[in-house]
């Protein structure tokens, strides 16, 4: 095997094994910086050894074993330094080793969950959480994270360094909160998964409407998280939601990359495997019981679309009812806007407009391009083309996405022609 091939093997192993290696190291040494440093040492040691001896049959096991040795070595040195300065009795290293044995045989799920809780710590901004999580939990390089976010590498590198510094300054150590604390922390994690997914799924900037790599990472994270907390209905709800939304990615853009609206999509292009997984997870949520949270409700809405073989078959009355439920537990102008859309489909454009028009008074909605886009569509259906045209132009001026802008301009032009 030549050097380039070995680099390729090790790069793949970093992607597959580094999250669990870093997670276990974080659990052993407590802090992320040391864990990441030791993980890098582990992989460097691998390159060094495998260059002459070849890649072992089970490289994952080799990496995990080596990481453990490096961690024990680091802790011993740390410990002996401490005993020198503090004159602690010589029993300390043995204690450390005993604890280590327990940790080393501990549960991988706990390791990974603890790592995710650290990288998604609420003390960090959502941007910092996303970057750190993609790097440490998804095993991406800084270059890959930067590419995924369409950001300069230096910006992302700095964001990651700053995030780790913030965690260190606040003395955030590897920990597994008790069940009630865990629930609260899972909220912060789900927020990151959904944010990354949306950044990929409905790219808010740039000229690409869908950024598959980012959506794929969010799906990977969501699947990880759901397997780590199999009884958490909101996590299952989040996974069902993003898998159902992702099932439509192939149908969302036309041959020239232009967006295709849900009702115009070729449903044979929807991904049946993702739909089945989404519906299965909704069944599991139902079997687990309890009242559904915001993600589970949104997933149930997405499922209504997934089950409809044609746009005309869509059960809009059920979708409107689910939005009513969502508006009750998670009221927001965006939910209200969607409730308006569903209500219009189920009960006519006027019923929808009655819900949508008050939103123009909402202070947070002034710059939100979808509001005039939806209102324009409803006026258009009611036959008021002048109103509709003005609103489509407004939507076009507000959106940052070049694809969206051209769709809105096109609709305004159609209105000007009087239909």
């Amino acid at each position, binding site marked *: 095997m030549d050097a380039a091939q070995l680099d390729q093997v090790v790069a793949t192993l970093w*992607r597959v094994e580094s999250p669990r290696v870093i997670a276990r190291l974080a659990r052993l040494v407590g802090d992320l910086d040391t864990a990441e440093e030791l993980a890098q040492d582990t992989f460097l040691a691998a390159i060094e050894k495998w260059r002459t001896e070849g890649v072992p049959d089970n490289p994952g096991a080799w990496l995990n074993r080596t990481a453990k040795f490096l961690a024990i070595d680091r802790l011993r040195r740390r410990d002996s330094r401490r005993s020198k300065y503090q004159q602690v009795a010589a029993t300390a290293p043995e204690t450390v080793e005993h604890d280590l044995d327990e940790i080393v045989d501990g549960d991988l799920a706990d390791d990974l969950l603890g790592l995710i809780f650290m990288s998604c710590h609420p003390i960090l901004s959502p941007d910092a959480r996303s970057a750190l999580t993609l790097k440490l939990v998804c095993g991406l390089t800084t270059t890959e994270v930067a590419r995924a976010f369409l950001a300069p590498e230096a910006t992302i590198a700095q964001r990651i360094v700053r995030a780790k510094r913030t965690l260190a300054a606040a003395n955030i150590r590897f920990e597994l909160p008790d069940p009630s604390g865990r629930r609260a922390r899972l909220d912060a994690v789900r927020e990151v998964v959904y944010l990354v997914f949306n950044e990929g799924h409905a790219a808010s900037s740039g000229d690409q409407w869908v950024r598959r790599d980012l959506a794929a990472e969010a799906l990977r994270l969501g*699947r990880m998280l759901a397997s780590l907390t199999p009884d958490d209905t909101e996590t299952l709800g989040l996974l069902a939601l993003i898998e159902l939304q992702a099932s439509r990615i*192939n149908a969302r853009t036309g041959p020239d990359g232009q967006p295709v609206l849900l009702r115009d999509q070729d449903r044979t292009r929807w991904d049946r495997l993702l739909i089945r997984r989404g519906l299965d997870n909704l069944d599991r949520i139902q079997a687990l019981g309890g009242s559904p949270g915001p993600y589970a409700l949104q997933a149930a809405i997405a499922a209504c679309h997934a089950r409809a073989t044609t746009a005309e078959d869509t059960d809009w009355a059920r979708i409107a009812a689910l939005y009513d439920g969502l508006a009750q537990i998670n009221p927001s102008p965006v939910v209200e806007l969607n409730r308006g859309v569903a209500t219009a489909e189920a009960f006519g454009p006027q019923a929808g407009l009655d819900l949508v028009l008050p939103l123009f008074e909402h202070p947070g909605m002034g710059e939100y391009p979808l509001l005039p886009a939806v209102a324009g569509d409803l006026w258009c259906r009611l036959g008021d083309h002048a109103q509709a045209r003005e609103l489509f132009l407004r939507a076009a001026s507000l959106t940052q996405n070049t694809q969206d802008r051209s769709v809105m301009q096109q609709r305004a032009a159609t209105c000007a022609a009087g239909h």
Partner: protein
Amino acid sequence: MRYMVMHYQTQDMEDGVRPSPEQQAAIGQHMQEAAMSGVLLTGEGVHPSSQGARVEVEAGKVRVIDGPFAEAKELIAGFAILEVDSLAEAVEHARKFALLVGTERVDVRRVIELEDLQ
């Protein structure tokens, strides 16, 4: 991209020898770990070929042959669909699975997806 990872039977699997509790635990642990990697979309295993059949077509003539079939090691024992970045990544998961499940061969094949047909 998606890969179908198919593992082949051993003579023991074909003979219906139940895996030892340790083996079962190891396989269960592996499935759990693959799920924790976030790459496992679905997977199934199949019973010995004595419970199956084969449909052969030769020059338009169909022949149905009931199992069992002689060539145990040429038969698929199960598959998993993985969502990964590369063939190399799929191979790493297949390698771990092969070591745990005690199979002598695992094929890793790229799944044809919609965008491949355009």
